[in-house]
């Protein structure tokens, strides 16, 4: 019986830690969904699936040209202007002031390899 209690304590704290990391504001009404979604892998998958369908009509607000999704840094890249828009919590942030400038000489991994 003690083992069960201890086991539950451990998993609960792990769940809380994971959830706290990924979502600062917790909805108290959905404890069940918390335990399901606390696995960070599921959250990442959900973030990626949001992105793909948006790319059909999402463009850079400055140049109105299409963007490229960079999975490693989780950003949307405009290669022409050399800027990257971050995606936070599955929501792309398309404000030009919040975009990151890509340094062309240091960031070789993000240089375009278009034909």
């Amino acid at each position, binding site marked *: 019986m003690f083992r069960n209690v201890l086991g539950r304590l451990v998993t609960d704290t792990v769940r809380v830690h994971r959830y706290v990391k990924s979502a600062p504001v917790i909805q108290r009404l959905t404890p069940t969904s918390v335990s399901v979604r606390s696995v960070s892998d599921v959250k990442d998958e959900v973030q990626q699936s949001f992105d793909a369908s948006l790319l059909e009509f*999402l463009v850079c607000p400055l140049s109105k040209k299409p963007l490229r999704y960079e999975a490693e840094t989780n950003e949307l890249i405009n290669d022409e202007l050399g800027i990257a828009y971050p995606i936070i919590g599955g929501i792309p942030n398309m404000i030009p002031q*919040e975009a990151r400038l890509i340094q062309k000489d240091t960031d070789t991994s993000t240089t375009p390899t278009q034909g």
Partner: protein
Amino acid sequence: MAASMRLLVRRVIRLSHRNVNVTAAGLPGRSGCCWAPSSCRCFSDAAGDKNTHFGFETVSESEKAKKVYKVFENVAQKYDVMNDAMSLGIHRMWKDMLLHVMHPQPGVRLLDVAGGTGDIAFRFLEYVRSQQERQKRRVARSMQTPSWQDISNNYSTEEEDGPQESTAVVCDINKEMLKVGKQKADSMGISAGLSWVVGDAEELPFDDDQFDIYTIAFGIRNVTHIDQALQEAQRVLKPGGRFMCLEFSKVTNPVLARLYDTYSFQMIPVLGEVIAGDWKSYQYLVESIRKFPDQEEFKGMIEDAGFYCVRYYNLTGGVVALHSGFKL
């Protein structure tokens, strides 16, 4: 502190009596800056930044965007609760009216700008889903006595639900508001056909001719350059697309206008302080309503942006106006 606030509010009510009949060109607002509650900030930027209004204050345009951002960042968590408290739940009727006038059919794409907590997007998806179910029921009813032709057709067109998928994109400049909206969606279990984007209404991150319907509910008065937002709306809408805007406007009946003003300046900031702990943000809210152009002037602005068949519906005696225009 409370006494000086009360003096302030009384001064503002006197102000508002005068301002109600003024069609809001920028000029009377600038003279009103001397009466503004906080210190008068009538400086003009060295870079030649124009001045605009932030409630009854005068600020530079770049400052307005920052201040508006701050306001909504502060109120985001309690936004929905405050809406219910301030409008006594009537805001739900206004938004339902918007959907009713919009009458979206399954398969359309909606862009909800300044959508924040997603009220319009949720209603849109629900409406479209109930429409789809109604259609299915109608089809099922007509299929009660199917002929052999009908049955064979039915087998071949079983995957028709694909192209009928409606999508809603919620765009807002404020991350906090979108976060609250996304949480709501997750708790309601709505995820299909709903997307969230942080973007500026004056510089939308969307391609041309993409959306069937563009809505902006109670957001356009917070935009620094309304004409730019209207032009962006014109750009992203498909030809035949509809622009719809819900916004607080001028009350036509003078008796109701007085009641409304008293309620706005006496009750709303107090409610803001009690419920959200933020007097100033709600003071800004009621002041910004007074600074927004009236129904006819806004209709003119929409027509200037290139929309046709522009008309408006007054709701609750003019407290809220629903403007609608088409891109042809």
